[in-house]
């Protein structure tokens, strides 16, 4: 016990500028841990604070296995293997868009998602074993997530420092698969069983770990909804057929959960009339935004709500000819001052009373909503000597209006976003609906 704590006693003493003796720190630390039974991390921070030091200067975190992580740890040390890593773009509220790293870390006890908010001094690749110091944990959608911040240090270790990770690919599932309806698919679910009709399927070539691989992807559906899928083995899937897929898992791809299956899955072909015809299944299901938030997005869904606010950058915008980013004050964040290309778009908050998402309408949809071409908008802006006129006109037409929008909904740390495919202003027969509700109410009274 004493030996284990020695580096931490030393760490605390150093953080306090050697003002307090190691003996005293050791006594205090032991009291926090054994009498008050708080976590080592909390104990260290409390002692430093108590003596007027800054807990952020603590350098020795507490080593933990991934299975022991709980949300809210301010400082943890990990020895892990990178199971998956990818780059993604986020736009924190009121800040510029930036690139961050995200992925999955594994050790022999568990796998946990991670996000690196600051650039790392090295390139991380799948399979790398890394020693992470001073990471912190948070809860994200009910699960622990590891975060690398600006105090976190990451160093590569020999690949032999940890046993090879055997996870999603290859390892057979234990036990019977759980039957799940398409509407109930949730990111992270594994060993599930789905009975569905294939609506479409196509073969694509992708690169996995530098080697070409065929993947069969498309859309499948049951009575409750539809989803994209990826089959990592050739099951000779054909459009229209009805199957039971046992041993599938759910993974997010570009922010939308989709069903995936590989050689571990069993495919049983079923009678074609077990499910309604493709035509009937291929509709865009109407969903509540709170359900989309819980699912982590959805493909081809329909939402009804009210456009309660237009976001910054709606209306007539100018894009960088190089990277298509919207210019601010005539300059691109990456390419400086460029001659912008005009475009129309709407970024609006769509709220259905259960939740809110950002709905993005492209030029074509915006022109239809305005009943005005891009050229006419440019002319109007010239005459008014400001692009605000276009935005104001859009606000006039759209804000506070009930609308039905259909498209793909993606999800990230900042919420949901719908890339709108089609939209229409809603005309609701308020009286008929009110009459029905009132009859129901009086019937039950």
């Amino acid at each position, binding site marked *: 016990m004493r030996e284990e704590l020695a580096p931490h006693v030393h760490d605390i003493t150093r953080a306090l500028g050697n003002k307090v003796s190691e003996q005293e720190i050791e006594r205090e630390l032991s009291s926090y841990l054994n009498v008050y039974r708080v976590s080592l991390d909390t104990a260290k921070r409390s002692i430093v604070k108590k003596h007027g030091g800054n807990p952020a200067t603590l350098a020795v975190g507490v080593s933990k296995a991934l299975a022991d992580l709980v949300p809210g740890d301010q400082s943890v040390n990990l020895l892990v293997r990178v199971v998956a890593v990818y780059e993604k773009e986020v736009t924190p509220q009121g800040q510029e868009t930036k690139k961050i790293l995200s992925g999955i870390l594994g050790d022999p006890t568990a796998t946990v998602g991670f996000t690196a908010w600051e650039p790392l001094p090295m390139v991380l690749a799948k399979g790398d074993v890394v020693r992470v110091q001073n990471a912190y944990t948070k809860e994200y959608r009910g699960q622990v997530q590891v975060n690398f911040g600006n105090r976190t240090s990451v160093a590569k270790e020999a690949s032999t420092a940890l046993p090879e990770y055997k996870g999603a690919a290859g390892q057979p599932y234990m036990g019977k698969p759980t039957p799940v309806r398409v509407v109930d698919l949730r990111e992270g679910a594994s060993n599930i069983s789905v009975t569905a009709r294939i609506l479409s399927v196509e073969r694509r070539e992708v690169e996995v770990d530098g080697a070409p691989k065929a993947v069969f992807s498309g859309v499948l559906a049951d009575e409750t909804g539809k989803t994209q899928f990826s089959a990592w083995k050739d099951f000779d899937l054909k459009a229209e057929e009805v199957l039971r897929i046992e041993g599938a898992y759910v993974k997010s791809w570009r922010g939308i959960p989709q069903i995936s299956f590989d050689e571990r899955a069993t495919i049983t072909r079923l009678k074609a009339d077990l499910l309604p015809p493709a035509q009937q299944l291929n509709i865009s299901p109407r969903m509540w935004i709170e359900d989309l938030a819980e699912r982590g997005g959805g493909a081809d869904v329909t939402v009804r709500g009210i456009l309660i606010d237009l976001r910054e950058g709606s209306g007539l915008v100018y894009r960088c000819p190089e990277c298509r980013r919207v210019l601010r004050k005539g300059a691109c964040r990456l390419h400086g001052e460029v001659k912008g290309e005009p475009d129309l778009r709407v970024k609006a908050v769509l709220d259905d009373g259960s939740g809110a998402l950002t709905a993005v309408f492209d030029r074509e949809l915006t022109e239809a909503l305005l009943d005005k071409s891009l050229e006419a908008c440019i002319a109007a802006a010239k005459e008014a000597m400001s692009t605000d006129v276009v935005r104001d006109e859009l606000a006039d037409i759209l*804000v506070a209006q009930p609308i039905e929008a259909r498209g793909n909904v993606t999800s990230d740390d900042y919420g949901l976003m719908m890339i709108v495919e089609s939209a229409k202003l809603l005309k609701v027969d*308020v009286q008929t609906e*009110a009459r029905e509700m009132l009859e129901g109410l009086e019937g039950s009274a």
Partner: protein
Amino acid sequence: MIREVAWRLFASEYNDANLETEGGGERPPSYVVTPLGAKVNRVFVVGVITDVENVGTDGQPMWRARVSDPTGTFHVYAGQYQPEAAAILSKLRPPVFGAVVGKSRIYSPQAGTTYTSIRPEAIKAVDETVRDFWILEACRSLQRRLDAMTEAQKMDPLTKEGLRKIGVKEAIADGIVQAVNHYGKVDLSRYTAMLAEGLRYLLPEYRESAGPGEPAPEVKAPAKEEPSSEPDETETKVLEIIAALDKDGKGAPWEGILETATSKAISKDSLEESINALLDKGLIYEPILGRMKKI
């Protein structure tokens, strides 16, 4: 950091609230929790903006707007930190249908007294169809909470998990548990009546047959007696009198209405009843004390 949903709820439920709670995280959002368990950080309201007044000073204006719905009145305050909303409010000419998105606020000047209000983020003048759709949405939202609260009142012990099991959504389940802990067992019949009131407001058949006996939302029983058609004429007459006497646009003075009504054989009692009914229905409002104006 996920954007807070904009609740649709009636003024009467919102104004019944006297519980404020905080969420978690680094910058915890605050919520006003209503007796039915709506946990409101942001609201979306569409109603009749009946008056706008600068209750601040000329140098530091604070605009107060009253927004009425079929059940009551929301109070909206916009000052220097809501420049856009304040600018719009200062230019509005009530009465006008208005849509307001804003943050919930609760103010307690002394123990036992609380006032709820809205700090607007955006305000827009809209038309009647937008208002009618809002009433329908507010009714649906109220119905969901009523159903969930009815189940909650049967549960012992009441837990969030128990509510989740019977299909109540996380957001509502959380609010309901907090509401029951704070308000105890609330009388749901008042809210059922409020729901019926909201729905009837949308239906022309009730507008025509509603009489001066039309009960205010406080009345407990949801079932209502069919009022006779005769008093309806009185209401129409009173409405005409108010319109005729409103010569300067500031509303018809009470003395004038009473005098004219008496000359048309309308008793003072039935005049008062008619005016109350017209106020409830949102057909007239009181721009300043003692004056009535047609909407």
